[in-house]
């Protein structure tokens, strides 16, 4: 027996969810679908390829206050920002689920734990939504993700006929399933068969784009002419890094007024020229060539060396939004096509 959420019960599912959790879900706004906090189940949609912005915003916000500080009588009092409440993010696509797992490693593994991010992760239950019809910009399969991959979700929904087949993956997912149990019907459905159908869906771009050996090839391509060929068209607008579900660079600033202030953390982008500018004015990445190289080397080489995975999930946002078409697909193709002569020289 497998749990199924009938299509007609979706609104009730969201309503019951809101009894215990705050809800973030895809809503249509200004003609596009965005993930937003919402209290209106009627506004939630499921007929979208993907949301414009990725779910990373809700774990690692564009701007967040880390703490307040105040100086009184020679002492400094610090008031930390703490996370409160439980939240559900509904309708996250497999590529974006995968991206959460990739950012987790950055903020979790190693000597330091990033408590602001982890507090949000711990208190958020992620409901994934499998893709029935991958779009022309989708290439998740390039990175081993499929339209049915649940990795990164606490509870996964597979659209099937008149409802959603439910797969519970974690304790948080189990808690949500219990919260909404009156709406979930036990039906004679073979979960493995349903999953298999999604995993086998064609992803035209991804199925033809191979990243095999790209990381190893890039080891010898730091000085390759490909970067000078690719970079002149970059406008430096930074939209790739803002919409990318795996980009996670940030800067911190103190805003001080008198003897009190706040420390803020804001997203930053390696595509901005002042990203690496140092106090004395020196900039180790002085031109677009170095900056474009940095972004793609990080995703296709440096991260692979550190964590064993590519830092891209093929969501296709850069394909859709880069105004000059300088995208992950383009770079991978360029690297695949580039001659090995230069590689040999560098080795």
């Amino acid at each position, binding site marked *: 027996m497998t749990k199924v959420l009938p299509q007609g019960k979706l609104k009730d599912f969201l309503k019951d969810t809101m009894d215990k959790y705050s809800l973030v879900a895809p809503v249509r706004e200004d003609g596009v679908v965005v993930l937003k906090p919402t209290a209106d189940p009627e506004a939630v949609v499921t007929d979208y390829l993907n949301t414009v912005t990725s779910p990373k915003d809700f774990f690692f916000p564009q701007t967040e206050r880390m703490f307040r500080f105040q100086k009184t009588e020679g002492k400094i009092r610090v008031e930390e920002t703490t996370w409160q409440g439980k939240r559900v993010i509904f309708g996250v696509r497999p590529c974006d689920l995968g991206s959460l797992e990739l950012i987790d490693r950055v903020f979790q593994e190693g000597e330091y734990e990033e408590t602001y991010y982890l507090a949000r992760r711990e208190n958020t239950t992620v409901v994934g939504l499998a893709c029935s019809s991958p779009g022309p910009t989708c290439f998740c399969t390039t990175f081993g993700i499929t339209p049915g991959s649940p990795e990164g979700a606490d509870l996964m929904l597979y659209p099937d006929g008149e409802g959603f087949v439910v797969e519970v993956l974690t304790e948080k997912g189990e808690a949500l399933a219990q919260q909404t149990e009156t709406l979930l019907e036990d039906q004679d459905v073979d979960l493995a068969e349903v999953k298999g159908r999604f995993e086998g869906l064609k992803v035209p771009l991804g199925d033809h784009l191979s990243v095999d050996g790209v990381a190893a090839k890039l080891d010898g391509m730091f000085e390759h002419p490909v970067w000078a060929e690719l970079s002149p*068209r*970059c406008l*430096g*607008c*930074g939209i790739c890094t803002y919409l990318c579900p795996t980009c996670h660079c940030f800067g911190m600033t103190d805003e001080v007024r008198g003897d009190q202030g706040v420390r803020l953390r*804001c997203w930053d982008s390696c595509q901005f*020229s*002042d990203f690496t500018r140092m106090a004395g004015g020196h900039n180790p990445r002085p031109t*677009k060539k170095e900056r474009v190289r940095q972004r793609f080397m990080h995703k296709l080489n440096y991260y692979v060396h550190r964590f064993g995975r590519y830092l891209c999930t093929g969501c296709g946002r850069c394909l859709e939004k880069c105004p*000059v078409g300088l995208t992950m697909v383009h770079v991978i193709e360029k690297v695949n096509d580039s001659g090995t002569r230069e590689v040999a020289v560098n080795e």
Partner: protein
Amino acid sequence: MKIEKKPSVAVYKLSSCAGCQLELLNLEPYLLDILEVLDIRYFPMAKREAGSGPYDLGLVEGAVTSGEEIIRLKKARADCRLLVAFGSCACYGGLPSMKNWVAERLVEERVYPNLAAVHSIKAYGIDEYVKVDAYLKGCPVSRDELVDFIKGVLLGTKPYLRPHSVCVECKLHENLCLFVTEGQPCMGPVTTAGCGALCPSHGRVCEGCRGPANDANPESLVETFEEYGLTRADITRRFRKYAGMTPEFERGAVSS
């Protein structure tokens, strides 16, 4: 804040619409605080009495478009410890610099019936003639940036004047990208931030009033504008509207 000796300020006007000076007066929520800490000695637009120099801080509004203005500008430079190019006209010519690609005689004829007393020259930013200590860009200047700058002067710290493009602030506001999503010819990717992405936040494309950002790529933007169907003349006009006298925007104006 208690100031022992208030820094003295002079506000000058060259060829301009006075809109930037007006922004100084529009700082209403802070104006009384500012008068507590600054001694505004010379400000003909707002004040009848004119105190003589030298001044600690000089704000120069407007482009230089006549020989007489060069003389006044050099006097201002001599009188002021810090001299600020106040607004886009003073920074790099601004709107008046639009005329720089038309013969001076034709421009004069279009505006004045009697040319005997008119001796206009090409419009330049003030750093063509004098050393400038700071540039407050914008048409008009950003009030937030202006307040930050005044604080910096008082504290002796360097104010944060955003070097990057308007795109950054647009994204901070989570605006829908007019350039990418709507295919509109937005100058944001090459224009200096600091305005809070004012125009795009109200659904209008950036006009480039703040001049080139620190790492502008006008050639690439021109290619995209052409894909969007803009004519060569349209593109040139966009780049020469405010800051055609800067090398970066001139590259966009002539790139093909």
